[in-house]
């Protein structure tokens, strides 16, 4: 018979205001095996923990039940306390009477009754608890960063700085991400390329960093400290090790009419291309959709001109398998498609553009070499209308329900830059709210209004109509003067909402990392663990977790790196001892468990058994690798003969809890 102690926590008034804690402690005293029961104001405080420790020693307790908050909160605290008093930490059970009782009920009588029942269930379970010992698993001292934008770059640099190897997987031919397409950065207006490209070069030159460009993550197996990842290296038809990036192939390629994605299709590139001058790695890539040689075997010009013989039309996708201890997701974002917003005439007029396209039009490396010209006729625009919240804060189903966060600031930047370069231009910004929290952000926006004379108008644009004379009629509300405005504009810039990259969803499935309804990765705790996924060993960096600007992305990237370093610095990780175990006598060798195991922890082997009639039989039975098993319990449900059991959560323990609740 166990000697059980019960400790009921008030949690200040969190529990005590709704649950009669004294009555709970009193009721637990008469439960079988309970030799001691008490209540205390804050059980997690040092005094509370000492109460537990002293009681274990004084009453020679063999198991304890703490009626308190969720085990996610303080199970580890109480296990540690029990351990220091000489009790096996897995002899501690938590009855969650806060999240699952006091916080969700109002009436004290039924809440107290429920708290007592939850306590009884925990006591019933402790009777069947057995001491468990945690094993250890080694940590592979190498990290993987998925996505090579500013988030991924910063994370990789910081991890490498601490002396650990780190690989970046980037699906584009170059690292750099969206920041390479941006012209200037708010609120200081320094040039994005000038601050980003040195970091890209640092990545390329760092011995600890390996860049897999034009590659994608194909498969992820394993668990924290020991991930096994398959990386698909897409065929670029150019030998990366030979190509010097001289660019002669891109000059000679006869296929010159390929929409240039770097300039968002506003100009053309060749079929063999280097995305931009500062690309890292600076090697050419052949676009198989447009290359004549790959499509119909006629051409071969690039191969002829390549002085180092880097062109290889027969190159195939290759697959690399690597082991990692930690994985950082930095998959970034894209502006949404504007198909649902016909009222803004984006698809009808070349002069209605998105903000990212505007960045390219003002960038010296852009299609107009930095001169702001209308895409339709190449003339200088004299009236520009910026529309905010296009698809953001939209609950009608057309757009995204969240605020994209960056648009207010970059639009202020655009408006300011236009007024500075072309003071004869009238600039209107239609806004719903101007949201500029952040260091020097509001001052920046006010400068656009006060010093640069940008017309900020509170109200939304309702209709954009391209007219035959080339102008664009913008019909909008001015809510403060209660007028409907009709502006004849030359250029309309839409601040399209941003959304997570499409690849994030399938990646989340591979990583078993959770996402919210908008496909942003969820963090382990919204305030206290913002850069970790709830899945151990998976970390989050940048916009894949939620909209954020460059300063915030870089901070989060470094934070994620710190967490990765903390993990990789350990030689071994303590395993969870609550793993599955097969009863070999009951196992019928059906393989059901092997099929459902998401971690590949179950294997089958033939074993000899002494049968009751003294003969020997060879039977095929399951066995679980405790270092790989994560204790999810899928196998225990799948097993048709009930041979699989989860230590610490055995079928009999759970049934005992249910029985105690139903009694």
């Amino acid at each position: 018979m166990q000697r059980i102690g019960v400790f009921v926590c008030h949690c200040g008034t969190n529990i005590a205001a709704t649950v009669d804690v004294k009555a709970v402690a009193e009721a637990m005293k008469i439960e079988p095996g309970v030799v001691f029961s008490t209540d205390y104001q804050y059980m997690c405080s040092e005094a509370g923990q000492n109460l537990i420790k002293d009681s274990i020693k004084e009453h020679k307790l063999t198991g304890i039940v703490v009626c308190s908050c969720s085990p996610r909160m303080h199970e580890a605290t109480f296990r540690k306390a029990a351990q220091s008093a000489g009790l096996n930490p897995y002899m501690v059970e938590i009855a969650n009477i806060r999240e699952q009782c006091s916080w969700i009920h109002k009436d004290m009588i039924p809440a107290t009754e429920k708290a007592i029942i939850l306590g009884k269930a925990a006591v019933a379970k402790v009777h069947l608890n057995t001491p468990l010992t945690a094993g250890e698993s080694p940590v592979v001292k190498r990290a993987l960063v998925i996505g090579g934008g500013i988030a991924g770059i910063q994370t990789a640099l910081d991890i490498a700085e601490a002396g650990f190897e780190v690989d970046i997987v980037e699906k584009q031919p170059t690292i750099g991400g969206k920041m390479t397409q941006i012209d200037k950065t708010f609120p200081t207006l320094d040039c994005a390329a000038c601050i980003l490209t040195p970091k890209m070069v640092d990545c390329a030159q760092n011995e600890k960093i390996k860049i897999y460009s034009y590659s994608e993550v194909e498969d992820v197996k394993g668990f924290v400290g020991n991930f096994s990842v398959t990386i698909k290296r897409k065929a670029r038809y150019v030998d990366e090790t030979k190509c010097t990036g001289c660019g002669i192939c891109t000059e000679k390629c006869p296929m010159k009419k390929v929409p240039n994605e770097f300039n968002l299709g506003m100009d053309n590139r060749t079929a063999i291309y280097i995305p931009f001058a500062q690309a890292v790695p600076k090697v050419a890539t052949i676009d198989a959709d447009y290359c004549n040689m790959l499509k119909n075997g006629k051409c071969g010009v690039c191969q002829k001109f390549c002085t180092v013989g880097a062109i290889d039309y027969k190159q195939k996708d290759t697959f690399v398998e690597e082991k990692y201890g930690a994985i950082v997701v930095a998959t970034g974002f894209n502006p949404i498609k504007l198909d649902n917003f016909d009222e803004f005439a984006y698809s009808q007029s070349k002069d209605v553009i998105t903000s990212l396209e505007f960045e390219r039009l003002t960038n010296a490396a852009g299609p107009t070499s930095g001169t702001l010209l209308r895409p339709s006729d190449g003339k200088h625009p004299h009236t520009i209308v910026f529309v905010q919240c296009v698809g953001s804060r939209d609950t009608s189903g057309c757009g995204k329900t969240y605020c994209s966060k960056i648009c207010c600031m970059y639009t202020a930047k655009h408006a300011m830059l236009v007024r500075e370069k072309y003071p004869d231009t009238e600039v209107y910004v239609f806004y719903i709210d101007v949201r500029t929290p952040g260091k020097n952000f509001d001052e920046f926006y006010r400068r656009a209004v006060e010093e640069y004379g940008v017309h900020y108008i509170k109200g939304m644009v309702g209709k954009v109509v391209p007219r035959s004379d080339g102008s664009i009629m913008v019909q909008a509300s001015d809510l403060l003067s209660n007028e409907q405005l009709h502006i004849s504009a030359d250029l309309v810039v839409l601040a399209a909402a941003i959304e997570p990259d499409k690849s994030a969803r399938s990646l989340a499935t591979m990583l078993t990392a959770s996402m919210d309804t908008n496909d942003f990765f969820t963090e382990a705790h919204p305030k206290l663990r913002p850069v970790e996924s709830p899945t151990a060993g998976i970390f989050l960096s940048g916009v894949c977790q939620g909209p954020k600007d460059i300063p915030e992305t870089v901070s989060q990237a470094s934070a994620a790196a710190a967490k990765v370093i903390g993990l990789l610095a350990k030689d071994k990780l303590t395993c969870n001892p609550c793993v599955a175990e097969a009863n070999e006598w009951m196992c019928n060798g059906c393989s059901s468990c092997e099929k459902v195991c998401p971690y590949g922890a179950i294997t089958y082997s033939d074993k000899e058994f002494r049968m009751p009639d003294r003969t020997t039989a060879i039977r095929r039975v399951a066995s679980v690798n405790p270092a790989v098993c994560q204790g999810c319990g899928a196998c225990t449900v799948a097993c048709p003969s009930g041979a699989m059991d989860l230590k610490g959560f055995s079928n009999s323990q759970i049934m005992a809890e249910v029985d105690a609740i139903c009694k």
Partner: protein
Amino acid sequence: MNRKDKQEQILRMSGVNARKCMRCGKCSATCPAYDEMEYHPHQFVYMVESGNIEPLFESESIYKCLTCFACVERCPRDVQPAKLIEAVRVMALRQQDNTHMKKGDLPMMLDEDIPQQAIVSAFRKYTK
């Protein structure tokens, strides 16, 4: 009927939750009858939500709305201003000079061709 009851009835009749409005003004930005209206779609939403409904009853605006539903189509928060304006209009009609139709008048008006729905809606419009 007091101010609060009127507000509640308009909201109930229209099925609109005016609190969803984030005051972007896209309804009024898209409204083709804007210049004709004294109170504009976004004002209807705001005034109903704040209970300031009397001026709307008095205004010609309720008859100027074309019920084209452009505002409903464009509203990013799915507020449906046109339905709200319709509800104000119906309520204004209902309360004009009290009751226009009495129960006793009904048998004389009936004939086989009148759809039942027409009778019901006539009652809703012309009785208090």
